[in-house]
Each structure stands twice: as C-alpha cells, then as structure tokens.
C-alpha cells in the first residue's frame, strides 16, 4: 500500500467501515509512514473538534420568539 491508496481509504478507516483485511493493510502502512499517520490523526481530530463545539448557538430569547411565531402560524393552518 502506498500513500495515495491510503488517502483513498482514509474516510473508510475513520468511519470504521473497512473489512478487517483492508484495515490491517492500512494499519501496517500507518506503522511506517509518518506523514500518513499525521494526516490520519489530525483529520480524526478535526472531525472531533467540529463535532464537540457549538459554533452557532441559538439564544434563548430568539428560540422563544420563533416558537411563538411558528406555533401561532401553525394553529392558523400556516
């Protein structure tokens, strides 16, 4: 396995959707390829950071206002 092949399977490795055999091939490549190991670890970290941080929070006041508007209009049959 070379780096290009590794990259084409990177998402499947991150999403854990590979067969055991392919996974083992990728792990073996990772074991001796520093750049791919960096890409793998930092890409996984990228996803984790975006998943765990709220970027656009909904203020409570806005939520209440929108709720009132939505429910009022729905009751009128939109």
């Amino acid at each position, binding site marked *: 396995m*070379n*780096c*290009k092949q590794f*990259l*084409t399977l*990177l*998402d499947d490795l*991150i999403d854990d959707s590979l067969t055991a055999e392919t996974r083992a091939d990728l792990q073996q490549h990772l074991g001796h*390829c*520093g*750049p*791919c190991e*960096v*890409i793998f*670890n*930092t*890409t996984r*970290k*990228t*996803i984790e*950071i*975006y*998943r765990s*941080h*709220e*970027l*656009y929070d*909904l203020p409570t006041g*806005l*939520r209440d206002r*929108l*709720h009132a*508007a*939505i*429910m009022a*209009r*729905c*009751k009128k049959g*939109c």
Partner: protein
Amino acid sequence: MDAIQSAAEQIEQHPDVALVERVRGGDDAAYDTLVHKYERQVFRIAQHITQNREDAEDVMQDAFLKAYQKLDQFQGNSKFYTWLVRIAVNESLMRLRKRRSGKLVSIDEDIETDEGSVQRDLADWAPDPEQNYSQAELAEILRKTIQGLPPGFRIVFVLRDVEGLSTEEAAETLGLSVPAVKSRLLRARLQLRERLSRYFGRKKGHREMGIEK
C-alpha cells in the same frame, strides 16, 4: 401472533413517527416537541449554508412551517429528521439565491480542488491543540475555517460529520450520488485539517514531512 408482531412494531417505531402521528391527529403540542428537538440542528445547518444570521433565523422558521404544512407527505420510510433537514437545506439554498439576486447557487459548484493541497503542511499538531485558545477564540477559528470551504464541501461535511447523517442520507438530502458525497467528504475533511494546521500545528522547527506520490 399478530399481537406479538404489532407489539414488536411499536417497540421499533421511532419516537418521531409517534409524534408526527399525534400532530396529524390535531395535537399541535406534539409538533412543538419536534420543533424543540430539532431547532438547534436546523438553525446550525441554515447558518452554515447561508452564513448569515438573519437568513438562518428566517430559514429556521420557514423550514418548520413548511414541514408542518407538508406533514401529510411524510411517508415514514425515511427518518423525520432527514426529511426535515432536506427541507431546511432547500430553504437555505433558496434564501442564498435571493440574497445573491438570482445568481444561481448550487451545491454542485466549486468542486474542483488541487489534490496536491493534501501534501502541504504536514507538521503534526500539538497535543490537545484546542486548549491553547479560549472557547470564544476557538469558536471563531472553527467558524472562519469552515466558512472558507467551497459550499458544496461545507454542506456535506456539516450534514455528515457535524449533524450525524449517514452517507446515504446526506446523498438523498442533497440529491447527490453516494460516490459524490464520499468524494466531497474526503476533500472537505482534508481541507479543514490543513487549514486548522495553521492554528494547531506545532511551532516552527518541527521537521517537515513529505508524502510519497
């Protein structure tokens, strides 16, 4: 036997489906429950696509109203959440078109990228790099970084990695093929990774690494 099968179906029924049925039966409070459950996600998606707070607020309201109106069309063979997200994505794209004075906005645009970009900037990241920033600074970095992605990549990344849709659900929602979603997701992840390296990479002096072609 029928009773057992019926009981099994009831156990397997998604709670949203039960709520939808209650709304159809005239229980508006059940719709309020659905709104509460998904308002944050719908707002986030709208904000990521329109990149404008005012538009995101309007989209959120319009999407929930439209979903309510179209509730009879919800078949229950896809998840309510996925169905709602599709409405929110369409509303967001329409809003974006309006703001851009009719200029065609498509999630199909801007998909050509330089594959070589993957090979730059391979310095490793510091351990727990986000701890070098305050929450506010970090949120700003993450917002700025994702806003720089082409729209077609950004939407796929948000639906798939932030909002937790499967590849198939994201494809269905966006009207794209599964391979197209996969290809965009990989590029989006790699571009974000590379852009975040500017903030999270180790200090200068770290050995630069190259990748074999």
